[in-house]
């Protein structure tokens, strides 16, 4: 069976799996943003927390993905459904780039700008929302971009625990020793990653702060 024939015959299933893949990646990225950005902000305010938070995120990052999926299986509620489990694992992996980039983005705001803002009487919240976050936006977005690209690749492994997504085709193809089936999973995943990368890269440029001439 060649690649194009397989695609043509299974286009509905491939579309289904692509959507499932996209769903896992989107939800886990949203969760990681909701947790990672506040954590990144927190460690700019409480420097003593910086090391433990970054170290924890670092350690999670080093756990092999297949093992992490396995570790989470016995967890209550989460372990009941493979989809939940996959989303949790992907969220954990996406945390590090988000925390690190939020921290770096805020810390990278020019010292004089922050000092002037404080000196003129901005409250902590005003400083954060009017000055620091807007100026850190492009760096934070770069973190989201990395997180998404990593997630799209990692989510293929989620099929190993039955969470679906494009990994399903890859594992099936491996079992059947059929390259066409593997490619039918791998190519849409790769395209998805490229597309997300380009789109967010463009957005990142738009948000980059104006530099001194």
């Amino acid at each position, binding site marked *: 069976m060649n690649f194009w024939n397989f695609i043509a015959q299974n286009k509905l299933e491939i579309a289904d799996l692509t959507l499932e893949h996209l769903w896992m990646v989107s939800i886990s990225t949203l969760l990681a943003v909701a947790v990672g950005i506040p954590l990144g902000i927190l460690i700019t305010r409480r420097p003593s927390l910086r090391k433990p938070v970054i170290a924890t995120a670092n350690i999670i990052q080093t756990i092999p993905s297949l093992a992490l999926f396995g570790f989470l299986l016995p967890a209550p509620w989460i372990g009941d459904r493979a989809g939940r489990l996959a989303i949790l694992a992907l969220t954990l992996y996406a945390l590090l780039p988000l925390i690190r980039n939020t921290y770096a983005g805020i810390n990278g705001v020019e010292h004089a700008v922050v000092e002037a803002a404080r000196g003129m009487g901005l409250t902590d919240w005003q400083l954060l929302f*009017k000055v620091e976050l807007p100026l850190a936006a492009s760096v934070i977005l770069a973190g989201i971009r990395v997180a998404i690209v990593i997630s799209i690749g990692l989510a293929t492994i989620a099929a190993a625990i039955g969470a679906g997504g494009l990994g399903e085709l890859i594992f099936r193809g491996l079992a059947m020793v059929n390259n066409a089936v593997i490619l039918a999973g791998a190519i849409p995943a790769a395209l998805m990653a490229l597309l997300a990368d380009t789109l967010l890269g463009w957005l990142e440029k738009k948000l980059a702060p104006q530099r001194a001439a």
Partner: protein
Amino acid sequence: MDSPQAVIEFRDVSYHLPNGREILRHLILQVQRGEILVLLGRSGSGKTTALKLVNRLLELSEGELRVEGRPARKWDVIKLRRHIGYAIQDVGLFPHFTIERNIGLVPAIENWPKEKVAKRVEELIHLVGLNGDVALRYPHQLSGGQRQRVGVARALAADPPILLMDEPFGALDPLTRSDLQREFLSLQQKLCKTVLFVTHDLREAMLLGSRIALLEEGRLVSISTQEEFLTSSNPLVKKYVEVFGTTLESSGKRDNA
């Protein structure tokens, strides 16, 4: 002891770092209403620290600092800072805001009506000698001198009675610096703010200061008017006058010619 005219009053103020290093020692100083008091000193003399204690960007370790007769620590810190304009050498304009928004930020967060903010911004742009067309530009599109003018305009935005200025003209070329110093002086004559001005440049101190306070290693060495400063017998003051003497004289000659 209580002088009703003292707007800023350092009462035996010391500041040390968490590691115990002393930056300011037992500073006693009063800034009178409407004067420009210049804090003169070399790098590391504690002059910037003294300035930041006033708007509580740093918290003093010992002693008491009064602003408008009230201990600074009893002020609500946000209210205190909005009562005091602050201009620094690196300006610190918000790169993502237009000049208009940069200048109008404090009035805007103080909930002034929009038209009043716009009017105030326009007024300030002209007051600091800028062209109205800079309003919609971004900081990176301006020259260093223009940015510094915007910095001064921003410090004046909500019309605070006190100004803290930390070498605001330090990073400019000599000609622009001299322009801005003169303009600032005439501006001050109009506005009558109480100004605490930090510099390491004796020429600037002589030009702007009502009085000059010389700091060295966190201690106040002398405080005097300009004339007294030039004729002082204090060895450190003498050294300053000597180092700057040639330029002071030559500028004097130029003025006479």
